[in-house]
């Protein structure tokens, strides 16, 4: 097999596995801070019980994020040595800042956040929760700066084929960064909202109907209902930004072959790259022109304009529809749930089961979204600067294949273990602690 393809599959598998966990922890850190602050303000144990359950979810997700992240830090070099050779002067400092300002911070205060509740004053514990949330968000910031720069590079010049920074401000605030960062942070918020709602709904259905479960359930549903319209808006803005800077990607997303006006919105089709047309298309007339140009006659660039230079159409096209479809499902169930909570103060069984079914909907939407944007950047690794093939390593295919098989096996085991342990924790969640009754919570500084 082609070593470049293997290297891509390996890196793609690893980064896909990795993103599942930061997507949860970035937002869950802030949710935990919110819950902790509510507890501080109300002194209501239900909040603290909700915290105790969710902090376990956080710890588990964080560990999986850390180990897969370490693997990634090595794979940057082993799979894409050309990347660092050509754009290392830009990527290097951004990665270094991520390690320095985020990794140590979150790793160190995580210890205090998890195990320090009885060792430090309450405000220090709250502060540790804040610093962990802040650290995960800083980490997201730096890595999304780098990723955005790879999509829309700015603030550099090429000397002998090697990128040299000329303006760090322009590098950091490159054209797609604000949209991508907002889109990803909201994706994290939604993933976390539906995870909390799903696990809590499951606890509720099993008869574990304590106030802490009710609090978490309401929090998850409400958070989802509030964030999803914002996400749809930001996603639209991100799409318009992409149209400006990476029109070929948008053409693949829309399945639009010819540059023309009155482009329909393709709801579903089978893109046929050989014949360069869509088969079995179901379309809304003028839809794409309206969305992208806010004008039914608006001219939208098509794939044929970028022949040989555009991404593979089918994966981008399908992944985009999966992401949007998932977003619509999220909108439907979170608004329905909020309506019931508002009018009746409780959720009917069907909605509860719907939430359970949607526990990991955020993962699906996030992965689909990343496939749209990353596959949509091909054949480039850094748009206009470096192609993926140029960055590949000389490691023999057999070696990449062997390690790929190993990684896939371990990721499959870990994913199954993770999901089953989450539900196991949810099952145990309501049971009183097996250990001797917890010591009274200390709200005053000790010693």
């Amino acid at each position: 097999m082609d070593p470049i393809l293997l290297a891509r599959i390996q890196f793609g598998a690893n980064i896909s596995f990795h993103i599942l966990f930061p997507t949860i922890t970035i937002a869950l850190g802030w949710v935990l801070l919110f819950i902790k602050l509510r507890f501080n303000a109300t002194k209501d144990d239900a909040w603290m019980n909700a915290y105790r359950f969710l902090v376990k979810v956080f710890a588990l997700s964080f560990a999986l994020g850390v180990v897969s992240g370490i693997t990634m830090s090595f794979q940057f070099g082993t799979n894409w040595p050309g990347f660092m050779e050509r754009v290392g002067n830009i990527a290097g400092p951004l990665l270094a800042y991520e390690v320095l300002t985020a990794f140590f911070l979150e790793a160190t205060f995580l210890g205090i956040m998890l195990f320090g509740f009885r060792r430090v004053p309450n405000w220090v514990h709250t502060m540790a929760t804040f610093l962990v949330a802040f650290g995960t968000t800083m980490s997201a910031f730096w890595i999304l700066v780098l990723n955005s720069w790879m999509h829309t590079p700015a603030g550099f010049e090429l000397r002998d084929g090697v990128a040299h920074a000329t303006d760090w401000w322009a590098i950091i605030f490159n054209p797609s960064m604000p949209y991508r960062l907002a889109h990803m942070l909201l994706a994290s918020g939604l993933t976390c909202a539906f995870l909390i709602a799903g696990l809590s709904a499951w606890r509720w259905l099993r008869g574990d109907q304590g106030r802490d479960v009710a609090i978490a359930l309401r929090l998850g549903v409400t958070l989802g209902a509030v964030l999803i319209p914002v996400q749809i808006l930001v996603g639209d803005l991100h799409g318009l930004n992409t149209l400006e800077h990476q029109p070929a990607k948008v053409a693949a997303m829309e399945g639009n072959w010819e540059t023309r006006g009155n482009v329909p919105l393709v709801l579903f089709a089978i893109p046929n790259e050989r014949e360069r047309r869509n088969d079995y298309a179901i379309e809304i007339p003028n839809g794409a022109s309206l969305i992208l140009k806010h004008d039914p006659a608006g001219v939208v660039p098509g794939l044929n304009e970028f022949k040989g230079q555009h991404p593979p159409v089918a994966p981008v096209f399908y992944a985009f529809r999966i992401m949007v479809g998932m977003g619509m499902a999220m909108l439907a169930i979170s608004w329905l749930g909020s309506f019931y909570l508002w009018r009746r103060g409780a959720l009917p069984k069907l909605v509860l089961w719907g939430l359970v079914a949607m526990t990991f909907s955020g993962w699906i939407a996030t992965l689909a979204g990343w496939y749209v944007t990353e596959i949509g950047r091909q054949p480039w690794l850094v748009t206009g600067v470096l192609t993926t093939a140029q960055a590949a390593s000389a490691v023999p295919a057999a070696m990449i294949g062997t390690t790929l098989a190993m990684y896939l096996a371990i990721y499959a085991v870990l994913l199954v273990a993770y999901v089953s342990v989450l539900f196991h924790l949810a099952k145990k969640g309501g049971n009183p602690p097996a250990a001797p009754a917890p010591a009274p919570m200390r709200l005053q500084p000790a010693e």
Partner: protein
Amino acid sequence: MALITDNLPLIFAALMAVSILAYVILDGYDLGVGMLMAQGNRAERDRMISTIGPFWDANETWLVLGIGLLLVAFPAAHGLILTELYLPVALMLLGLTLRGVAFEFRVKAQTRYQGAWDWAFVGGSLLTALTQGYMLGRYIMGFQPGFWPEIFAIAAGFGLAASYAFVGSTWLLAKTEGPLQARAVGWAQATLLLTLVSMLAVSIATPLVSPRIFERWFSFPNIIGLLPIPIMTGAFFLALWVFLKRMPRADHSLDIVPFLGAMALFTLGFLGLAYSFYPYIVPERLTITAAASAPESLWIILLGAVFVLPFIAGYTAFSYYVFRGKARDLRYD
């Protein structure tokens, strides 16, 4: 300014060296405790984990910083080294992954799987230590192919695993008490001897492999100036041996001493290696200066590092202060 710019490669080599040394000591004790867990029952394993639970994640971050600095500051060396070590790196990552997730799964998973995760923890720690030692061995041998270099690298794997087990058992001496501490004394004594053998083996092999390194150590007057390194190392071994003979002590105020001694040993060994290989970053192939990336990017990182590292040192110290003394049960509430 010009002085710093001219010496940026050297400064970054030093930063990288400090990160790697910090990693080897800090994650070394985590991994050592992980391997020693094979010896304990469930209650002992819980207690052993509780000595490293709040720290392991930050400890492991030093590896990310070290490898990150290699990648960022010396991309050419990074490419060469990681291509040579592709398979052992993949195995090490497997080990680190198993060890890292087992921390969580061993207590959160369904009871019937917890034992298996304990073994994943032990196996992951052992695999990580062995592969890291193997990589060190390959590095010392200048990545030469052949039977004897392979044998040396494999032996180095066991040597580093033993050294990690040693620093791990001294960590247990500092953080536990009672019967577990008494067992840790035995582990520390045994692994101290193995560490001594490993360090001797490396010290003999390194100058034999490279005439250049032989020259650096044994030519006159270098040998006079360098003599303190082996002498101090020997003295620390002896002192540790004597001290361990008197442990466990009724008075716990000096329980940290063996760990400090282990730190000193690691530092001396590391200095010796650094001296042997300087100015090369890939032995006999690529020097620090030749491998360095563009100065303007290194400047940006240096500014960040100078500003942020004191904070990292500060809150790391705070964390060790919060979890000072003998380890207690790890509890979320």
